[in-house]
C-alpha cells in the first residue's frame, strides 16, 4: 500500500548503509581474513585453512578458551548474586524519589571511563596500596590482590555492576505487587517469597542482565591484563597481542570468530532460557 518515497529512503538508508559498510562488512571480512596467509610479514589473500588448524592444534589456545569461558561465566554468576540485594533494595526498599536518584546515579558510571577506574583499582589493590595500608592498621596482611583472579574479578565487577543492577531493578519494578502480597497472605516466608515468587517473576531481566555481564567480561581485555596480570592470558588479551605484535592478523581473526560464535551460542541459549514457559 505504502510506496517507497525519496523522503523515506533518505531517512532510512543512511544508517543502514553506514552499518553495512562499517559494521557488517568488517565482521564478514574477518571471516575471509582468517583464511589468508602471511608471507614475509605481508598478508596475502588466499583460501588456506592453515590458521585454523594452527590455532586449534595448540593446547594453549584451548586452555585460554576454557579459562576465558570460566572467568566470564563465574563473573556473570558472581556479579548477579552481588548485585541482587542492591537491586532488591533499590526496587522495594527506597522511596520513589530515592529510587529515581539511585537509577540516575547508576547510569553515570556506565558511561564513565572504565580504563581510569581500573587504574584507580590498582591504587587500592597493590601491595603497598590503600587496602593493604588499611589492613596493616588492624595488624592483618599484606595480601597479594593485584595480578590475581581476585583482581580480575574486581575489575569485572566494576565493569558490570552498574548495568546489571539497572537491568535487575527494571525487572523487579515490574513484578506484580499483588503476587508478593498474596504470598505474604498465604504465610510464605520472606526468603521463600524472594526465591519462589519474585525471582521467577523477574527471570527475564535477571537472565538478560547476566547475559550482558557475560558478553562484557568475555570480551574485556583491560581487567584481566591490568588487574589480573595477563598471565595466563584471556582470549581478548591474545587478540591484542597477536594483532599488535607483528602481522598475524589472520590468526587473531580466528580467535575473534571463535569468540563471536561462543557469544552467539551463549546469547541464544540464555534468551531461550529467559523466555521459556515456566513448567
Amino acid at each position, binding site marked *: 500500500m505504502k510506496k517507497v518515497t525519496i523522503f523515506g529512503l533518505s531517512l532510512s538508508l543512511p544508517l543502514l548503509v553506514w552499518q553495512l559498510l562499517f559494521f557488517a*562488512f568488517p*565482521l564478514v571480512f574477518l571471516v575471509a581474513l582468517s583464511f589468508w596467509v602471511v608471507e614475509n610479514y605481508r598478508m596475502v589473500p588466499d583460501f588456506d585453512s592453515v590458521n585454523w588448524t594452527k590455532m586449534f592444534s595448540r593446547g594453549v589456545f584451548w586452555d585460554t578458551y576454557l579459562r576465558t569461558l570460566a572467568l566470564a561465566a563465574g563473573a556473570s554468576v558472581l556479579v548477579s548474586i552481588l548485585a541482587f540485594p542492591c537491586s532488591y533494595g533499590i526496587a522495594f526498599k527506597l522511596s520513589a524519589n530515592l529510587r*529515581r536518584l539511585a537509577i540516575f546515579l547508576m547510569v553515570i558510571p556506565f558511561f564513565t571511563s572504565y580504563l581510569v577506574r581500573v587504574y584507580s583499582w590498582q591504587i587500592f589493590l597493590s601491595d603497598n596500596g590503600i587496602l593493604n595500608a588499611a589492613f596493616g592498621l588492624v595488624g592483618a596482611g599484606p595480601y597479594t590482590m593485584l595480578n590475581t583472579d581476585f583482581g580480575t574479578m574486581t575489575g569485572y565487577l566494576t565493569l558490570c555492576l552498574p548495568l546489571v543492577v539497572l537491568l535487575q531493578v527494571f525487572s523487579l519494578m515490574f513484578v506484580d505487587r499483588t503476587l508478593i502480597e498474596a504470598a505474604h497472605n498465604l504465610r510464605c516466608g520472606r526468603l521463600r517469597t524472594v526465591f519462589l515468587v519474585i525471582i521467577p517473576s523477574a527471570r527475564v531481566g535477571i537472565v538478560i542482565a547476566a547475559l550482558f555481564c557475560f558478553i562484557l567480561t568475555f*570480551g574485556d581485555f583491560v581487567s584481566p591484563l591490568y588487574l589480573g596480570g595477563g598471565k595466563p592470558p584471556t582470549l581478548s588479551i591474545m587478540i591484542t597481542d597477536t594483532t599488535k605484535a607483528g602481522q598475524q592478523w589472520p590468526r587473531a581473526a580466528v580467535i575473534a570468530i571463535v569468540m563471536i560464535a561462543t557469544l552467539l551460542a551463549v546469547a541464544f541459549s540464555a534468551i531461550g532460557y529467559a523466555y521459556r514457559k515456566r513448567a
Partner: protein
Amino acid sequence: MNRNRLIDWGLRAYVVLAFAFVFAPIAASFVFSFNVDRFPSLPLGGFSLRWYEAIAEDPLVWEGLRNTMVVGICASVISTTLGFAAAYTDFRYRFFGKPVYLALALLPPTIPVVIMGLAMLAFLSRVNLSGEIHSVIISHVVMCSPFAMAIIRLRLSQMDPSLEAAAWNLGAGEWRALFHVIVPFARPAILAALFITMAVSFDEFAVAWFVSGLNETLPVRVLGFLQGQVSPRINAIGTIVFLTTMTLVILAQVLLMRRLGRVEEMPRTDEA
C-alpha cells in the same frame, strides 16, 4: 505483613555499599590527583598541583585532547543524525526485513571491543582508511549511533502519530512536518543523544587504540601510561575525563527526565 525493620535497613546499607564500590575508584582518582606523592598510598601526602602541571606540559596530552574533541564532536553529530533518521524510520514505517534493519542498527555495542577493533583495523587498512583521525570517527559512529537511536526512539514512542498526520492534512509536506513537528518534539532526546554519544566516544579506548595509528586520542594515551610505570598523571587526566563525561551524562539524563514529566502538555506546545 511480616516486615522486619532490621532486614530493610540491612538492604539499604547494602545499596549504599554498592554505590561506595562503584564510586570509590572515581573518588580515589580525584583525591590522588592532588596528592604530592609519586606512589599513591595512605596516609596522604601534601596537596599539590604538580600532576596537573605535568600533563599541561605534555604535548602528547594536548594532542590527544585535541583528537578526542574532534572525534567526539564529529562522532556525536553524525551518529545522532543517523540515529534520529533510523529512529524515525522505525517509528513511522513497516517494511520487509525490518528486524534485520533494527539488528544492524542496534547490535554494535554487544560486539566485544577487541573484535570490533580488529575488524575495523583489518577492513579500514584494506581500503586505506586506517591510521587517521577519520578512522576513529568512522568506528565511533558505528558504536555510538545505537545509543542515539535508542534514546530518540524512546522519546518518539511518547508521541501521538496523529500529530504528524494533522500537519500533513494542514498542507505541510513530509519534510516540513518532520522539521516542525517531529524534531521539536524529539529535541530533548536529540540533545541527550548528542551528549551521551559524545561521552561514549570520549571514553572509548579499545577500537581507537586499534585504528588510530599515531593519532592517539586521550583514552589511548591513558592506555599508554597504564602500560608504562605508575604515574599519578593518569589520575589527573582521569579526573578531567570523569568530570567531562559525568557532566555530559548528567545533562543528558536531566534533559530526558525533565521532559518525561511533561508528556501531556507537549502536543499543545508544539502545535505552533
